[in-house]
């Protein structure tokens, strides 16, 4: 372990997980710094959940190792488990127990006892906004309330690393917003977060660094800006015009700052260096040619574009 390793909350090295001939994860390596939010972004089946299952000691790696706060999942899993709080993708609660009974039980499983347990349960109930419903059976709770309790359980022992596996799947926008805000607050309070999602916007909003996964491998890895640079810094402009004109297409291709123009059925796609500089020239040329532009859509490069660029598929496919 070198000096830099002291700043690492998670260090995954060459992780593999095979089920017979099925390779769920193949050679995944990444580091998560203490105090950062690190996201694993990828479509369903990319290997995100398998990866964090190995980080959470739920699955043993076929090959490779993970160190969490310096402890190996292979040689010291109990120390790893004490350092992490896991929020599973599916709600994992005892529905026939109350919110307080659930928190108390799970608190005991994290080693809390007596007055400390009671105090921490009270605090978490307040944090997740269920203090007034603490005696209610979980089976009577709404989906959003259950989600909050699902997260609250992972916070009971004040974990150094919080692992959330797609916590916003299938919930309403308001609950989703609450969860994202909670993650930010926890991170600001010093908790390291490992987050998996297939929503590009969530990864972009929350993460200090992102690893894009596909088919069990990390295909890109870095900050949002670093990832976007993979596809360059070009803007994509999509124009709709009232009449397709070969002449105007030719003149647009010749315009300074325009790198690529493709036209099909009245829709023209342009890759440009800077849309702010190029767009006035495009309108001027169209006016001179007697062509009217009926709509304009400008897109800066994003993770969706990166995934499309790297895999030839959309993230949500």
């Amino acid at each position, binding site marked *: 372990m070198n000096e830099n390793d002291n700043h690492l909350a998670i260090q995954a090295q060459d992780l593999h997980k095979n089920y017979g001939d099925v390779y769920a994860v193949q050679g995944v390596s990444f580091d998560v710094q203490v105090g950062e939010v690190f996201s694993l972004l990828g479509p369903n089946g990319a290997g995100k959940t398998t990866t964090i299952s190995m980080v*959470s*000691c*739920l699955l043993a790696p076929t090959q490779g190792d993970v160190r969490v706060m310096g402890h190996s999942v292979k040689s010291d899993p*109990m*120390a790893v*488990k*004490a350092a*992490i709080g*896991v929020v*599973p993708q*599916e*709600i*994992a*609660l*005892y529905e*026939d*127990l109350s919110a307080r*009974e659930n928190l108390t*039980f*799970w608190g*005991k*499983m*994290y*080693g809390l006892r007596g007055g400390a347990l009671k105090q921490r349960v009270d605090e978490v109930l307040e944090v997740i906004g269920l203090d007034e419903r603490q005696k209610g059976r979980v089976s009577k709770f709404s989906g959003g309330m259950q989600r909050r309790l699902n997260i609250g*359980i992972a916070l009971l022992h004040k974990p150094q690393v919080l692992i959330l596996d797609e916590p916003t799947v299938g919930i309403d926008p308001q609950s989703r917003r609450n969860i994202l805000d909670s993650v930010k607050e926890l991170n600001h309070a010093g908790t390291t977060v490992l987050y998996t999602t297939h929503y590009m916007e969530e990864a972009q909003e929350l993460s200090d660094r992102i690893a894009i996964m596909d088919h069990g491998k990390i295909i890109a890895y870095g900050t949002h800006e670093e990832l976007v640079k993979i596809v360059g810094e070009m803007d994509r402009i999509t124009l709709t015009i009232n009449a397709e004109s070969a002449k105007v297409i030719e003149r647009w291709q010749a315009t300074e700052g325009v790198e690529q123009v493709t036209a099909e059925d009245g829709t023209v796609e342009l890759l440009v260096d800077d849309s702010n500089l190029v767009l006035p020239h495009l309108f001027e040329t169209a006016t001179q040619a007697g062509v009217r532009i009926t709509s304009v859509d400008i897109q800066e490069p994003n993770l969706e574009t990166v995934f499309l660029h790297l895999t030839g598929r959309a993230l949500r496919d």
Partner: protein
Amino acid sequence: MKILDIALKDILRSLRNYFFLGFGLGVPILMGVIFYFAFGGLASEDGFEIAQVEVLIVNRDEPLAEYDGFSAGKILADFLQSEELAGLLAATEAASAADARAAVDNQEADVAVIIPADLSTAAFDPQGKAEVEIYHDPTLTIGPGIVTSIVTQFMDTLVGSKIAAGVAYDQLTAQGATVDAMVLQNVATQYGEWSATLAESQGASPLLDIRSPAGKKEEEGNMALEMVGGVMTGMMVFYAFYTGAASAMGILQEEQDGTLPRLLTTPTPPSAILGGKLVSVFALVIVQVLVLMAFSSLIFKTEWGAPGPLSMAIVGLVVLAASFGIFIMSWLRDSKQAGVVIGGVMTVLGMVGISSVFTANVPGAEGGITEILPLFVPQGWAMRAWRLAIEGSTAGDVLPPFGVMLVLAAAFFAIGVLRFKKRFV
């Protein structure tokens, strides 16, 4: 500590679960009650509370003029009608023994106490003998028992007084003293007062004769209760195995619900997680067995036999039912499969295992297939141990089935735990 936390959580969840309350406790009790009504036990027991016993007294005792009109029969009749016993007995005097017996036969009274004409005479005659007849409905147990106990106490005191007077007479005459009737009466009275301060004595008196109405026997009267006791035992064995399997199914259910994987992400040793769940399975079967036994004892007056054989039957049933449940569940993939197994396989095995309840009294059944077949399933061994216990067998008699149960339980437990450990740990 975490083992207990997990076990207590599971027990709490089970006690809130309609399946356990319904199938573990409700249905066995309901079955027992149905059989109880079917055999008429309830109708003849006047409900579950001890009601005031209707007693008819026929006092034919003739007072002894030479002893200042002393009448043991009158003392007994007055005692039975005293205020002290008013809470227990509603005693009135009847005109004749025939009237009193007829009233009992017609269920107009619970007990008739018929005091013979020579009771007082017998009390003072060293060779004298008299019988107080207690006539009652044989299907009643509590009321006649109370009256018998009271009359027995009285008769014990009377016999003691008689012996004391006899001894006093012999000693005084040996010393040349003159002994008249008043002296003997004083001796007898003093003995009676002394005796009253002693603890109640039990046991039959040579002067006491308890008789049932003609044509009925006490044993026949208790047959319904004995049968209900057998049925309750069968239900207990049958449903204890259900509870063992259903409780062990919780392991599969938690895996499906995601709470078991989540538990495995906490700093709780996997062995503690499995251990806690196993403890809860054992605890729930124990709770079920004890509740059903208590209910049956209280309501059906079931006699479970001597403590030693009974303890062996309880321990054997609990460990075998719980272990068998763990064993069965360890082979299944999910709770859907478990539902089919509990509903089908466990029912068939249970019916085979407890079939001796219904075939025990069939002529020629002893030693036949109906007795051997149940021993091919675990429930059959549990049933055998319980039957031996409630039939009053010794611990030595119960030992063979108990031993088989322990061996089976150990094997089921070891295989089940190994399979679950391989799967989750």
